């Protein structure tokens, strides 16, 4: 069953967006193709357990949520020496060839309904280009969403032996008076031979916002493509963070964290495809739920036929602070090549009573003890972060949620 295309959307809408931004023909064509595809493509798959469909994306009222011609954001970008960090529009002027070559090369706009919607309508986003051998540290993108709808498309390209550590943060701007909002964030990473990318993304949208993100990397020979994601805000988040290990000896770490409270709903997914020899993947997700928040996780390690000598590890842990929160986790390991060392696990549990007693027996009051345990629970995630500012921000948001 595909989703009704909102009546507010037409080729004219798309043409208007392209025209306002003075976009080249090829991009307009790509947008119009994506618009056409909306009638045929489906919403992303969601986890189903007996009697329950965890995330009901069909219930999203796109008619009301999608307001394509009034998109607005304020985005601050900090570059690093030798690298290019530009808004998508500005990059069209300076690096059109690179954009044309790579846009949609990692994430096909017709992957699903939401990616097609994004390709047709996106108005913001960033282009990061790291030339051969350049080491771009602490690239920062701080985005503020200032409209009912915002579609963002970001493209990262690292050439041979280049390196980039990136922090992206997303917040809501002005007060929304409880109006429902929709934020879509597509990120493509093209990690060239022997290059290194760590893309950190911290989402703290207000709790009237529905949030969809698909981030995918294509890792070439000996490339490392690492993701770190923190989901703190939003009413509902559907996040898919993925790496295709296409080159021999390539590696990926996908690190996820979330802290849901009140009525938040978090659907987070990490996936890796081992498609070449000697590839390594490590998927680590840690989440905390309070109040009536819900989380659903799917982790997939897919080891292809040609993926000789694969190492692949996955673990997910959810910590529940409330009896009324709910969590489901599905770690999946699909092996088509026996020459694989792999592990996968998921746990859902509460704060350990013996740990708490141990801490209180040293004079620490129970609430402080619990908070210390929760903050300690996130440390394995924090330790992976390259950009200090990202680590500090995530820590602060976790601490703030505990008070």
């Amino acid at each position: 069953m595909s989703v009704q295309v909102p009546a507010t959307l037409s080729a004219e809408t798309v043409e208007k967006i392209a025209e306002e931004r003075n976009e080249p023909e090829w991009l307009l064509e790509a947008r119009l193709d994506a618009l056409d595809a909306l009638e045929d493509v489906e919403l992303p798959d969601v986890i189903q357990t007996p009697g329950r469909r965890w995330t009901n994306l069909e219930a999203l009222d796109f008619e009301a949520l999608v307001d394509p011609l009034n998109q607005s954001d304020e985005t601050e970008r900090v570059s690093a020496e030798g690298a290019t960090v530009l808004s998508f529009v500005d990059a069209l002027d300076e690096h059109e060839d690179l954009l044309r070559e790579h846009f949609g090369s990692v994430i096909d706009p017709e992957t699903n309904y939401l990616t097609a919607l994004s390709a047709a309508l996106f108005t913001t986003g960033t282009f990061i280009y790291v030339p051969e051998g350049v080491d771009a540290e602490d690239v920062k993108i701080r985005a503020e969403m200032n409209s009912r709808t915002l579609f963002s498309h970001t493209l990262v390209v690292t050439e041979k032996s280049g390196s980039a550590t990136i922090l992206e943060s997303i917040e809501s701007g002005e007060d929304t008076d409880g109006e429902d909002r929709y934020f879509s964030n597509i990120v493509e990473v093209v990690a060239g031979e022997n290059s290194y990318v760590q893309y950190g993304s911290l989402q703290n949208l207000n709790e009237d916002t529905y949030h969809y993100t698909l981030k995918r990397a294509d890792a070439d020979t000996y490339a490392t493509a690492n993701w770190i994601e923190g989901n703190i805000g939003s009413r509902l988040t559907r996040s898919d963070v993925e790496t295709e290990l296409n080159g021999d000896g390539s590696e990926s770490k996908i690190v996820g964290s979330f802290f849901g409270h009140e009525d938040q709903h978090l659907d987070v997914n990490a996936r890796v495809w081992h498609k070449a020899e000697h590839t390594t993947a490590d998927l680590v997700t840690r989440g905390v739920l309070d109040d009536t928040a819900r989380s659903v996780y799917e982790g997939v390690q897919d080891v292809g036929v040609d993926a000789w000598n694969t190492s692949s590890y996955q673990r997910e842990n959810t910590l529940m602070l409330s009896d009324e929160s709910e969590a489901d986790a599905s770690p999946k390991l699909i092996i088509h090549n026996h020459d694989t060392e792999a592990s996968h696990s998921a746990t859902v549990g509460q704060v350990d009573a013996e740990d708490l007693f141990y801490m209180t027996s040293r004079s620490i009051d129970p609430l402080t003890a619990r908070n210390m345990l929760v903050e300690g629970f996130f440390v394995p995630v924090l330790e992976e972060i390259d950009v200090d500012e990202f680590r500090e921000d995530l820590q602060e948001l976790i601490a703030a949620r505990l008070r």
Partner: protein
Amino acid sequence: MHPNPYRSVTRDNTTMATLEIKNLHAEVAEEDGETILRGVDLTVNSGEIHALMGPNGSGKSTTAKIIAGHPAYRVTDGEILLHLDEQDVADIDEELDEDDYTWNLLELEPNERAALGIFLGFQYPAEIEGVTMTNFLRQALNAKADEREELFEDEDEDAAEAEEEEDTGYDTSPMEGPADDGEIGVAEFQQLLKEKMELLDMDEKFARRYLNAGFSGGEKKQNEVLQAAILEPAVAVLDEIDSGLDIDRLQDVSKGINALRDEQGTGILQITHYQRILDYVEPDHVHVMLDGKVVKSGDASLAEELEDKGYDWIREEVYQAA
């Protein structure tokens, strides 16, 4: 004397805190929970070393956990009192009355008992990832000072103060260690920690490691004694602190326990199965538990006798008398 500016208690031989356990009955805190303690009587004064021995299942560890307030047990009868003296409350600025010197521990939360001067050395200490030793211990030391103020605070002022000073609790990062915000600054705390670690022959690197995470059995036990040395309790209950220790580590740990008593005047209630540690930490009193009761007490020679003859003769003695 030990140059520690943060000592909450300074003792000489004329002062004394007392832990008094009277007719303690307890069961597992479940529906139809098994009865474990059937009338424990035990008194430990500060500055004394007591050994609590007995076969498996006799109730030794349960006694220890109940003293500290473990939620898995329900006390059905009896009481646990902590008597303090002037020196124990020398750090408190408030006007104190009679009541402030005797506390019914069963009415208090585990953290309150700890703040008053009860310490439990765990048989199996928790491994806590992401919380560094330094951070944890400094937090504990500051929490103890805060909790003590609250416990001894005049009740009328209670509400007003609570409003005035919202307890922000733990407000520092587990990654970077504590901010300089508590009673005890980072640098001063580091110095204190360093001294105590030297005393126990512990490597400095422990301070930066996560609490007990990946520690060997022996390192965990050393760490328990280190914590007692830093928190300076009136009475420390050490639950099988000697199990899983090689001889070198046993000597380090024993040195630490003796220092607790000699330098801080802590009373020690040491639960053990073996005579071995008692060669290094000589007890003033030895008690034997059987079926949930203390059935026999004596001096150090009782432990030696137990080592030779086991517990059966005591069992016979007790049941013949009954």
